[in-house]
């Protein structure tokens, strides 16, 4: 860009052009909105009681009356899928929150606690990494017994080392970054640097990561439910529904397909959102 006439150029350089959302981003937003509605006001999306049993109506295929068909007890699969949103998302989100919080604590200790703490946290992370995913979760379940709460904690714990490692790296990067250095050179104090520069810059990407993580947490949590170690029937949790429906895979495909689809779509949507957030926040850098 020519800077021979700086004063005029500056005015046009300032405004930031926002990229128009792509088709996939629109889909992702719409789906997340749908999930949000299903979580907060499920009644808006379905008027049928998800737990209303009607044995005579069992195993009906999808129809205008029952969009996703009925299950083995004649319950409406669509309204159960909707009702399951809050459970599944609650588990996914709480697990992510646990993971991120633990990761943040570990990461911050490592990032700010001096060499010895950094070293020990680093080793801790390494050790936790040696219990891959589900394995750590299963160990937690052996200790605390199965159930949705345990499953949530288990998934949260098993994702924590990943977050911790990323946060640590992020903090280290920010701490040695040019702008922190220049704030120091200007004479700003450490607390101000921490609150004005380091934390805001470390947290933004963390939120993005967390968005990406929710989808995977939902998948892992539903895997535990599927194995009978997480949420249990008749609670309308996607993994548990899937697990129950799999028995009838030959007779009633809709019992497996729809909850599975919800898990897949949720993961896809959060991934798309997380990625576009990454792109947008990265664009600033």
């Amino acid at each position: 860009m020519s800077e021979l006439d700086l004063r005029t150029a500056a005015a046009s350089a300032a405004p930031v052009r926002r990229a128009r959302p792509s088709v996939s981003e629109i889909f992702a937003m719409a789906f997340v909105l749908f999930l949000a509605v299903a979580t907060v006001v499920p009644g808006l999306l379905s008027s049928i009681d998800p737990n209303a049993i009607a044995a005579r109506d069992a195993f009906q295929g999808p129809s205008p009356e029952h969009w996703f068909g009925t299950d083995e007890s004649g319950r409406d699969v669509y309204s159960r899928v909707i009702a399951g949103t809050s459970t599944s998302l609650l588990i996914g989100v709480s697990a992510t929150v646990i993971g991120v919080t633990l990761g943040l604590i570990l990461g911050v200790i490592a990032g700010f606690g001096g060499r010895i703490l950094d070293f020990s946290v680093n080793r801790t992370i390494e050790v936790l990494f040696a219990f891959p995913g589900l394995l750590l979760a299963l160990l937690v379940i052996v200790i605390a017994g199965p159930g949705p709460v345990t499953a949530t904690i288990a998934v949260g714990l098993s994702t924590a080392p990943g977050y911790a490692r990323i946060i640590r790296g992020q903090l280290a990067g920010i701490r040695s970054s040019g702008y922190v250095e220049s704030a120091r050179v200007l004479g700003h104090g450490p607390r101000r640097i921490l609150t004005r520069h380091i934390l805001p810059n470390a947290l933004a990407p963390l939120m993005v990561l967390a968005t990406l993580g929710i989808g995977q947490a939902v998948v892992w949590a539903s895997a535990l439910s599927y194995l009978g170690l997480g949420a249990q029937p008749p609670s309308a949790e996607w993994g548990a529904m899937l697990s129950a429906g799999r028995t009838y895979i030959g007779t009633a495909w809709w019992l497996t397909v729809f909850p599975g689809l919800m898990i897949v779509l949720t993961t896809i949507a959060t991934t798309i959102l997380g990625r576009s957030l990454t792109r947008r926040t990265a664009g600033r850098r």
Partner: protein
Amino acid sequence: TPGESGSTPVAGGTLTYASGDAEPTCLDPHVGGNYPQALIAGQFLDSLVSRNTDGTIIPWLATEWSVSDDNLSWDFTLKDDVTFTDGTPFNAEAVKVNVEHLKDPATESSTGYLALGKVESVEVVSDTVVRFSLSTPDSALLESLSQPWTAIESPAGIARGMEENCQAPIGTGPFLVDEWVKQDHVSLVRNEDYNSPPADAKHDGKAYLDGIEWRFLPDSASRYAALQAGQVDVIDNAQPDTIAAAEKTSTLAHLDAPRPGASNRIELNAGRSPFNDPAVREAFIRAVDVNDGIESLFFGSAKRSYSPLSSIEATGYSDESLFGTDLDEANALLDSAGWTERDADGYRVKDGERLSLAFPVSTNQSIPAEQSLFEQIQATAKDAGFEVNLSLLDLSSWYGVLGENNYDLVSAPYTKVGPDVLRILYHSDGIIPAPSGYFANHSQVSDPELDALLTSASEISDEDERAALYEQAQKIILEGFHILPLYDQQNHFLLGTRVKDARALPTVSTPTFYDAWLSGQ
């Protein structure tokens, strides 16, 4: 009958059996004694006697038997040319060792131990004659001895110690344990010297099959898919919908072999509040609706039962009138029992306590359809103001909950040949645990009249009198609303077309592959 064919059997081939039951932790059915053990043990162990389809006892390892007049001494004459697969001879001494093994607390037997509860001692009369001395008469002795949990093992095998004997028990059966790859399969190979089939077997001599690959395939969908794909020849624990689907095909055969003994039922724990009140028990039974559920969940493969006993037990007594669903009556009963108030959730309350029922369900013992049925019961019971707390538990936690008397409802299948199962399940002695911790009287019925009926029925040898006593006993159980019968213990096998002449033994309905052969071999 499925698996029957007009053509001549051909020898050879290995049959693959896929079991959905839990993998046994010990292959010796003397230890503990559950159905998964019975399923496989029947392939390599023979019992002293067997049972015909009409319920009469027929010879197996014992050729004949007689009982003394006081009904306290039984003499069994044994086949004289049988050897165990380790080469040691089968004789009266072996029978004695087996009974002692079963009765030794160190064996941790529960099923066999209970079955032989009245056997005081065993005496070797001669090499081929063995005498059982009883403490009290036992009309169920022959039935007890027909079960796989009391099957005869090589004394030399037993002497190896529990650990080794669990790995590969040695019997006289048509197959022997070649290898047990834990968590995967057991390889059974033919016993080339087999000469002791039960009296109702179709042929003599050794089995047609070279061997059996006994796989553990816990996932029911995979199991059925494997059968469809021809990867396995026989599956057990077939799910209701797959049974219905299989019956529509020409390539799969269905072998329906309801288990003997008790029906599948929900027991109401009278040993603690609120079910210590008969009115509450009746209210519960009147409140819940199971018929629609059974129909839809089981795709017509299960028939509603109104009896404590399996439909294959000739002495079974049922009374449908007691089990009609009637919500109004249930409400009236509860009101009169003092459960008058309802809380915000619609559950009944008395003295500030909610009408809550703990219902621990063992995931190992209930198929998904049954668990769904329990959910439906939970839903219908709510209308009357019952809160049913279902909890799905693994087996050991489930035993734990039962042991702590922390349950109000429980469904615990019990398989035993003959009506004497009633004594085990409903005699007040059954509230005391066996050495392994198992206790059978989950409904905790403690009724002296019932105890007396069951005791005398077990001692009387006259069949008609015996039947009358059992009918009376069943009446007491049903009319006391101690149980909610559901259906026979489901025992469905699906067979691929190449499997011929496989059948279930009329004892505890375990499959036997002695006569079986593979076509196109």
